[in-house]
């Protein structure tokens, strides 16, 4: 089967292998075969190794990061799904969930940890928890010309042991010429995974239950504004932990926001109504204050609500949407009874949807969302969107109810397929989910992202994560459009045009195109551009191109989640 030259290489390689290595290769090849298997394989993402491996780095000048990325890249080539993570962004609570945890960390200052790894370092030096399940090893970077050679690495190594974790490979200290030592350490670390079996593709998803609209009671564990100081925007990355979570990439979650307490208080003051008074409202029985805060939509009332309001107070009111408070100020109600009558015609607060930005495999037990704070101007007054503002203000540790909104028309395709993701602004959310999922499951398809926003320095959402995925090869290509970094406006569709030839090649080769984000004008502009590219690159007439695009949609080779 093999030609002479390759047969020789094969035999030469086999001759050098240990039994362990042979077993490992056996598993690897089996896994590879099952991944490349044609369509019949279930939509599940195959898992190349059953072990969960994390390579974490703590760096000041970038050596540890570079090294860790290289090692993670190498691991991937070997079929091991090593997750690469910077300790500056590591969530401590994840430690308990890790299986194999390999740390590459440098020493700085006078034997101190790198600034970015300081919090992690302090965390593991606190008492009061153990991580008995963790298997670990530490690679310490340092410089023998410093008296405290590799001190931080030593500390971390020792501390993990104290926390009950199992050291699988001894601490490796490296001088400035760390490459050879690092590689040796890494090979030992790989061996310690003890010939990982490659799980057949079928086992991973078969057990998944259908997803219903169950309400989850989650806890917010992270809420950060992704935009840097100086940005015009405020985009919140929110991580929520919940018991028994089930969702798929491409799904959204629905959240019912509370109204602002200050607005509720003002409504009560304006009307002179006693907020503690308990009333029946729809199927609920509660105090007026509670209903106004948590149940009743009081913002930007629909025209028909205004109509009904006018009927109750028997006045002419122009049918212009406005907030209840403004309405009450201009057209006051007579008394409490009339106010209660008004409440009766109002609707419940509608849930808002947010596309999930996390992956079930990479972020087990959590759901992440990317929320742009909606700020707009109403007659010269700056107002904020109800839910996005509500979410932007949530502190960590607060409880949040949500449900999972499945989306059949927006889902991640099988792991071997190439995907093109177009997601400017918060449209990037599902693509973080897709790429994290593909990273965690070792999917082999290529991944190409188009992202855009206003400014490169302040608005590049998830920049460091994209960089990590790019450096490990999970993200194949990325093109960026920052609209306000130059005189002329540049948007994702302009970048697509610049890449037209390659884009069409991908599409023609079966790549699936995803689009997510604001429907107007972005979504429509991007669709137009796609049509244009298909027409020009494919030498087609307008009609042929439209037809081609229709087929893409039918065959789910174009999927969108625009809002």
């Amino acid at each position, binding site marked *: 089967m093999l030609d002479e030259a390759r047969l020789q290489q094969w035999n030469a390689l086999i001759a050098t292998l240990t039994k362990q290595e042979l077993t490992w290769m056996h598993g690897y090849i089996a896994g590879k075969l099952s991944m490349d298997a044609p369509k019949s394989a279930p939509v599940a993402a195959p898992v190349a190794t059953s072990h969960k491996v994390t390579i974490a780095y703590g760096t000041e000048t970038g050596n540890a990061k570079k090294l860790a990325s290289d090692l993670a890249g190498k691991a991937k080539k070997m079929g091991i799904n090593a997750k690469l993570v910077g300790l500056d962004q590591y969530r401590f609570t994840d430690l308990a969930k890790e299986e194999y945890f390999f740390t590459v960390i440098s020493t700085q200052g*006078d034997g101190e940890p790198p600034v970015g790894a300081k919090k992690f370092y302090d965390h593991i030096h606190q008492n009061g928890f153990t991580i008995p399940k963790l298997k670990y090893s530490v690679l310490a970077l340092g410089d023998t010309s410093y008296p405290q050679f590799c001190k931080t690495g030593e500390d971390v190594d020792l501390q993990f042991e104290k926390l009950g974790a199992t050291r699988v490979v001894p601490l490796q200290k490296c001088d400035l010429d760390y490459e050879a030592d690092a590689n040796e350490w890494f090979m030992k670390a790989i061996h310690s995974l003890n010939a990982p079996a490659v799980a057949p593709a079928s086992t991973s998803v078969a057990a998944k239950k259908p997803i219903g609209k169950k309400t989850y009671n989650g806890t917010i564990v992270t809420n950060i504004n992704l935009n840097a100081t100086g940005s015009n925007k405020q985009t919140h*990355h929110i991580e929520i932990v919940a018991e028994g979570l089930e969702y798929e990439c491409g799904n959204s979650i629905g959240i019912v926001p509370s109204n602002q307490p200050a607005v509720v208080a003002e409504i009560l003051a304006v009307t002179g109504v006693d907020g503690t008074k308990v009333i029946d409202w729809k199927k609920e029985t509660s105090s007026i204050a509670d209903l106004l805060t948590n149940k009743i939509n009081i913002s930007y009332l629909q025209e028909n609500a205004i109509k009904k309001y006018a009927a109750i107070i028997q006045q002419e009111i122009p049918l212009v949407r406005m907030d209840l408070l403004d309405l009450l100020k201009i057209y006051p109600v007579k008394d409490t009874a009339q106010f209660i009558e008004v409440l009766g015609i109002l609707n419940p607060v509608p849930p808002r949807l947010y596309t999930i930005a996390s992956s079930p495999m990479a972020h087990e037990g959590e759901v992440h969302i990317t929320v742009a704070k909606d700020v707009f101007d109403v007659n010269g007054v700056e107002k904020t969107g109800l839910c996005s503002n509500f979410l932007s203000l949530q502190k960590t540790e607060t409880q949040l109810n949500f449900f999972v909104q499945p989306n059949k028309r927006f889902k991640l395709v099988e792991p071997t397929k190439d995907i093109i993701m177009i997601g400017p602004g918060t449209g990037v959310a599902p693509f973080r989910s897709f790429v994290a999922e593909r990273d965690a499951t070792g999917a082999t398809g290529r991944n190409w992202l188009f992202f855009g926003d206003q400014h490169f320095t302040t608005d590049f959402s998830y920049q460091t994560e994209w960089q990590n995925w790019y450096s490990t090869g999970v993200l194949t290509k990325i093109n960026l459009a920052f609209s306000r970094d130059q005189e002329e406006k540049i948007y994702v569709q302009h970048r697509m045009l610049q890449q037209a030839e390659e884009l069409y090649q991908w599409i023609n080769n079966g790549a699936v195109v995803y689009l997510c984000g604001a429907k107007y004008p972005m979504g429509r502009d991007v669709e137009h551009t796609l049509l244009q590219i298909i027409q020009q690159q494919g030498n087609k007439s307008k009609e042929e191109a439209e037809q081609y695009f229709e087929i893409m949609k039918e065959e789910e080779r174009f999927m969108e989640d625009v809002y």
Partner: protein
Amino acid sequence: MSEKQNLSVVEHIKHKSRGLRGTLVESLQDEITGAVREDDHALVKFHGMYEQDDRDLREERAEKKLDKLYSFMVRMRIPGGLMTAEQWVAAHNVAGQYTTGVIKITTRQTIQLHGILKRNIRPTLQGFSKVALDSIAACGDVNRNVACASHPHQSAIHAQVHAYADKISQLLLPKTRAFYEIWLDEEKLEEHTEVDPLYENRYLPRKFKIGIAIPPNNEVDVLTNDLGLIAIIENNELKGFNLAIGGGLSATHGNANTYPRLATVIGFTGSEERTLKAVYEVLTVQRDYGNRSDRKLARLKYTVDRMGVENFKKELEKRCGFELEAPKEVVFTARKDEYGWVEDYKGNWHYTLFVENGRVTDENGYLLKTALLQIAETGKTTFRFTSNQNVIISDIKPEDKTIIQALLNNFQIEERQALISAIRKNSIACVSMPTCPLALAEAQRYLPTLIDKIEPLLGKYNLQDDDIVIRMTGCPNGCGRSSASEIGLIGTSPGHYNLHIGGDREGLRLNRKYKDALDETAILNELDSLFSSYKKDRQPTETFGDFAARRQLV
């Protein structure tokens, strides 16, 4: 010859860079990062730039999943620190458009602009190019900006000596056209790399600095250079130069193999031809004998000490084809700028302006940057930077003096200058935080307020008019030449400095460490007691530095 095995990483990068081109063009196209590629990091220096990031923002940005806020600092090549008014105006405008806006005068008579985003590098350099300014070889393992005594009045021979700065700079420029191709859109030559007999394809093992002094003033700190030229003037005639080799100030905390060193005078050359030849060959000896495996030990000072001064000199003379003459007698009596108005031998006027830490900006009601712009816009001056990070508004014709004076008045420049204490006028701080990646402690953001607190101490002992030279650097690299000062403060960690004393006023003796890692209170306490004993026990006319050395305090 140089250790062929075990070359340092940077050596490989230089070697395979195809005339310093590397992958810079590709780096500029990388959209995902504001940085250049790993290897280009070293190469971009040869083009006069450093990749930096705002260290104040690191933590915030990491949390926001944003990469570091990378930007570039451009250092101009301005031999001898002389700029035309037109060039100043251009620098002002470019600074306003693409940088932090602060024009930073350096300790080697040039200017730096910080905060230039990757995509703005080309427009910045193109803006400079329009007024014949470039940043070639302002950094990197080549000969850097040649420093030269800057005050034109110093002697009629100043212009003659000053011309050497430019000649030497030209002589030692790398031959590659990469700068023009990459940044200025010059058409690319065929796929061949220019032949460079001096730098070959390996350049020098490390940076190389040349300074030229005109005695009796040593404001360029000539002996802190790899190669110092000391002008020898007899009967109002330039006779030639004493050559001094192996100066350099950097040390690494905790690495005993590194040390600051003043240059050793090895001889004298008379004619221009011989002087330039000797200068050139000092570089070739360093090129061939310098340490290329450990960058910490690669400066000329280590080569000289490893070979021995005599052997170095022999090798140099062999390459020159002539012997150096015995060095001439030289006396240095000062190391300071001559503030205020000075008339030169031709009757032209020069106004030397103290610029605290070299930061030209408009702040706290002091519109220095606007003032200098308006002065430049008259077109009636040149600008000369000094090694003390100051600027001389220079070459003003007698008939134009009133115009400049009026502008100085408008901005209350002279009034403000008059209020500045002697110690402040003799102070230098390096850049340090937030841009310098090597900084361990603050420097230019901190020294001004520290001096606020030192001034009353001096007042207490009636020493307020004493020209004590005080210098602070954020790390032991010594960019503010902190080891060559009477009071040196060298950062060890945030808020902490080693206190060095015992250097002389003229820059002919280094200071030494007196106390380790002091915080502000400790610094002030130590200085208080030092000033007190200096006041009590000094000999008449004895400087603070000499006193400290004589009393063997260090």
